[in-house]
Each structure stands twice: as C-alpha cells, then as structure tokens.
C-alpha cells in the first residue's frame, strides 16, 4: 500500500507543478551586480575594494505577476560592524518595502563611515513574503598600497 501511495505521489507532484499548483513562479530577476557609481554599474564583480565612497550591490527587476505588489525585506549581512554610537556589533541591516511589478530596485551598500570599512564576506539579499529570495555575495578586500 505504501509503495502504491509513493508511486501515486511521485506521479502527481510533478504534475501539480506543471499545472501551476507547485511553487509560485519567480518574479524577481537580477539585472546587474557589482560596483556602482552615480547609480551606474561600473564593474560587474563580486570582489569589492574597501574604500570610503565605494558602492556595491545589485539591481533587480520585479516581473509582472497577477499577485500585484509584494512585501519584501532587504537584508544587508555584514561581517560585523562596530558602530561607535551603539553597544552591539551590527551584523545586518534590515528594511522592509513593497515591491511593485514592472519596477526596478537597487540593493546596495556604500562605505560612508570609517567604521564600516570591514573586510570579509558581505551578502545583500531581498526576501519576499512569498518566499522568493535573490542574493549576491561580495568579498570585500583591502587594497594593496
């Protein structure tokens, strides 16, 4: 009986996906990533030299969908920043926004304070309430003088 049930599920689950009953279709699409200057991509890369004024991240598009606007979280995961005005290590920044289909969004980080200059692995990602995630990992390194 268990074998029959397993065989039934093995047949029916892919079929559900094919007729749209499985995972929701992806609506987020990365269009550019790397180092940006004045809102323009200057270098497509995942390696970022550590310097004040440098902006890195990615740009993504929200494709048209029937579901309309989508709630999402933008997460900037850092190697651990020590903000002198706070008492704990800043491991991430999280902000929420509503994504509108058809629009393009920028997920980025700009080194603007000396205490933000930390080498290591940074990850920028967007997570929708529907469970879809886009992510880009960056390796921030110290430039040789």
């Amino acid at each position, binding site marked *: 009986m268990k074998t029959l049930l397993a065989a039934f599920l093995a047949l029916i689950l892919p079929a559900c996906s094919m007729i749209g009953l499985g995972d929701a279709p992806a609506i987020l699409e990365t269009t550019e990533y790397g180092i940006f200057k004045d*809102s*323009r991509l200057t270098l497509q890369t995942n390696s970022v030299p550590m310097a004040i004024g440098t902006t890195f991240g990615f740009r993504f598009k929200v494709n048209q969908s029937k579901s309309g606007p989508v709630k999402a979280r933008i997460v900037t995961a850092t190697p651990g920043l020590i903000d002198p005005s706070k008492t704990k290590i800043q491991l991430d920044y999280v902000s929420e926004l509503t994504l509108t289909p058809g629009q393009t969004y920028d997920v980025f980080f700009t080194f603007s304070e000396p205490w933000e200059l930390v080498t290591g692995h940074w990850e920028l990602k967007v997570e929708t309430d529907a469970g879809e995630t886009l992510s880009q990992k960056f390796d921030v390194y110290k430039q040789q003088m």
Partner: protein
Amino acid sequence: MPWTWVNTRCQFKLLVTLARDGSAGGRRMIDYSESLERLEKALGEQYRRSPFILGVPGSSLACKVDPFHYLAVQPGFIKYLSRWAGMFPERVQATLVKTGNMLSDTTHQNFTTAIHVFEDGSRAATQISASFLLAEFIDRAVTQHGGSAGPLPVSRLRILEADRPRTGFLFEGKTPLQGLAFGNPNQRTS
C-alpha cells in the same frame, strides 16, 4: 498671502526627463513622478513602523520647522530614504530636486547648507548639514501611507537666528521660511 510660491506635485505630474538612469549604461526616460510616488510610499511605510523618524529633534531624520517646510538632516535623510525605497541615493536626490520637493539653488546643484539647530527650550545648538523639503511631500507620505490622521505638527526644532542668511539661497523666489523656524537657544519661541 504671506508666501509667494508653492510647489505642488501636479505641476510635476508629467515631468519626464531623458536622463541616464544607470541601466546598462544607456539612456532612457525617467519618470520622476513615478519615482516620487515610490519615495512617498517608502517614507510613509517606514513612518508607520517607526514614527520617531520624523518630528523628534535629535532623533529624527526630518522635522517640520514651519507649516510649509521640513528640515532634513543630510546625508542621513537621503541615505536612509534610498535604502527604504530601493533606489540609489543619486536617483533619490535627483527625484526630490527635479520635482521641486527638495529646495535647491538656481543651478539645482546645491541643496544643503551648514546651519546650527536646537530644540526649543534647550541651551545648546548643534551644527548640521540641512536640506529643506516641502511639507506637502512628507505630509502626503505620512497621511496616505503612514497611517497618520493628518499632517504632522510643527516640531520643536529651531534654526539659530544668526544662521538665517545661510538658508536664503535655497529659498530665492520661493515661499520663505516663516519666523517661527528661527530662534536662539537661550530664549523660548513658543
């Protein structure tokens, strides 16, 4: 009528400019009214979650200093608004300046000024880099998207009277800041 110039969004509703937007390094039409609505929504939604971002001297990114203007602390205001809206700071800045919602000089290149501010009743003033935004923009954000029943009241933030001339270049030909926006730390203005 004590003021001579009021900017309304409808004036800029159809403001569409050919400009670089950064996508693939090409040029395409940027609809600033669409970007402005996105900024309004982002600011309003953030206000709904964290009302202290507006109106609290010493804590907020922007405080209303007269019925027609908010003073925004820079570069924090643009930095955070860009994060909340998912737009690069340059685009946030361009949207606010080109739609007239963030006051700039006649060249549209300068929109900040270094001035001293203080909370009404306090004794000390602090120097900041400030911009001025039309109250209409922020009040629309908090009422339409932030759950506020009406426009926010004028805050307790004041500009040092001696710094009044430093603000003038941003208000040429526009509604000037009203007197209640200015004061001195050692005297009450209300």
